[in-house]
């Protein structure tokens, strides 16, 4: 399975992009500081809102801050929020969904009620209110809020999948041997949900990054923290679009779009592996088919 995952070009593209941004988030700030000698917060009064140049590769902001250094620091902020929110959301989805699906009955009714409650809650306004109360608590709190409000859909999917797995004969068989419920869930049921959980995690990761960017754009963010969202928000507040300072807001926007595309590509690839009907023809197959078509056409032409 892993080798066939890698041989799928969509998955390979997605994995490379995600790995690149992960590395950028982990090592980037250190690299920009030590190699390029840039500080994302330093204000260079001599270069205010200047376009890309040899000195500032991606130009500077209205405040004379280097955009490249900000972009790299923002990658750390955005990825941190995305990963933490996805971890929290996925964990909650597993706890609620799998438990409800496995045990059924009253447990299912209660947990499913909570899930539905979180599903119909107007999440965005709620996030506004909650983060309004917790103003200035940093990226940590933003990630927790996004995770806590974003698990319901995943829990539903996992509940449905668990329902179908738990009644399979092999679960009954192991239960008959005397396996305990926690072990049955962890060892017999969960391995069948790994694909779902992995794609849910990727979805939650990109969802978390987008939500953070959205919240930052609307002004709900830690003003001291740097993320792609807060960069776009700063650009917006200084009317960068009207003033043509494209180098300020295009790079963070592109990064968000790129990582979103990457996550989607990985999910498509996983879908294709699970369902061969979705698989596109490889270039080799297309070429071979064309050659056959040409040969047939030539033969017909020759006959006529």
């Amino acid at each position, binding site marked *: 399975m892993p080798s066939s995952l890698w041989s799928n070009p969509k998955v390979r593209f997605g994995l490379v992009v995600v790995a690149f941004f992960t590395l950028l988030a982990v090592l980037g700030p250190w690299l920009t500081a030590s190699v390029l000698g840039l500080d994302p917060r330093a204000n260079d009064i001599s270069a205010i809102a200047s376009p890309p140049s040899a000195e500032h590769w991606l130009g500077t902001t209205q405040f004379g801050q280097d955009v490249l250094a900000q972009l790299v620091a923002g990658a750390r902020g955005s990825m941190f929020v995305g990963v933490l929110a996805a971890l929290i959301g996925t964990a909650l989805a597993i706890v609620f969904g799998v438990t409800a699906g496995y045990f059924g009955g009253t447990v299912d009714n209660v947990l499913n009620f909570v899930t539905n409650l979180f599903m119909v809650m107007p999440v965005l306004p709620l996030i506004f209110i909650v983060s309004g109360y917790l103003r200035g608590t940093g990226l940590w709190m933003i990630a927790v809020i996004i995770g806590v409000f974003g698990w319901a859909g995943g829990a539903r999917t996992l509940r449905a999948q668990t329902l179908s797995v738990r009644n399979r*004969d*092999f*679960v*009954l*068989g*192991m239960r*008959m*041997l*005397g396996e305990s419920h926690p072990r049955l869930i962890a060892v017999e049921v969960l*391995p069948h949900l790994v694909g779902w959980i992995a794609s849910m995690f990727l979805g939650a990761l990109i969802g978390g990054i987008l939500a953070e960017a959205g919240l930052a754009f609307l002004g709900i963010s830690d003003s001291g923290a740097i993320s792609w969202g807060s960069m776009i928000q700063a650009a917006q507040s200084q009317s960068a679009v009207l003033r043509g300072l494209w180098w300020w807001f295009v790079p963070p926007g592109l990064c968000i779009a790129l990582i979103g595309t990457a996550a989607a590509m990985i999910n498509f690839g996983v879908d294709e592996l699970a369902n061969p009907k979705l698989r596109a023809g490889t270039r080799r197959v297309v070429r071979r088919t064309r050659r056959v078509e040409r040969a047939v056409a030539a033969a017909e032409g020759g006959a006529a």
Partner: protein
Amino acid sequence: MSTAPVLSAVDVTKHFVVRGAVGDSAVVRAVENASVDLHAGRIVAVVGESGSGKTTLARMLARFYDPTAGEIRLDGVSVSGRPTRAYHQDVQLIFQDPFGSLNPVHRVRHNLDRALRIHDRRMSAAERRRRAVELLERVSLTPGEDFLDKFPHELSGGQRQRVVIARALAVGPKVLLGDEPISMLDVSIRLEMLNLLDRLRREDGLALLYITHDIASARYVCDDVIVMYAGEMVEGGPKDEVIARPAHPYTKLLVESSPDPDRVGTVSRDELFDDAEALGEPPSLIEPPEGCRFHPRCPFAMERCRSEAPPRTDVGGGHWARCWLHQEGRAHEIGESTFAAALTRRDEQVRA
């Protein structure tokens, strides 16, 4: 038969409530007043067509369902309310589908190892491995070492079913319940599986319940046969008695429907059942027929069969049946002609 049964079901009944979309509900009477005794070293076969309640009976005996009425007794003690975990150390169920009863993500070793570990927590890893190999060889997977690290998809249906049996044996049960254990296997390996069950019964003294719709395989392996129809037990007794001299019209239909090399040439099957529709369908278990549940399909049906359920009649030698023919002194009619002939005669009478 003088020994006490290891496991018995006493007048067990199972009703399932099914709820419709608009809030109405119906009761499916899956099993009614079924009794069965399993003795050490004996195989009891439960025979019947799809929907006759065989599997429900097996699942009640395995305590996946609680009976609506009646009780299950292990070594003479009622098990209701007692923990299922201890119960399953004595009673194990073999599922019908060998492709579904092994988790595709785990190796054979995992299945046996867990079973042994749960059964005896003090057993060392080396000891468990030795026992696992022994168990695999017990079910004729030799050399056992080679099978330990295989995944289910690397095994054939017959091999999987052997692993399932080995897993069940790992906890050292007294009773094995086989829910159509061979129906999903290739015909060529069914006989080997039956021989394996027979060996377990003879050498280990296991009590076996063998559920099947195939009366020929029941005849091959079992000691006693019980015939179920529409959730009720209609006839039972030693296999030769029941199969050679059916005392219930339904058993007669079952026996005549199964291919029998001895009968080839004497009566053509096409002739016997040229009009399959005339044989009818098993009834709905939501609204079963009044009286004897078989009466709509029975060529011998009388007025009484339509209103009153027949009592159990002993016909000698441990052989019993629930049919009014025995009470009315018409029992000899069952053996006089084939089921199809009786059916044709009835239809002619109706027309005349």
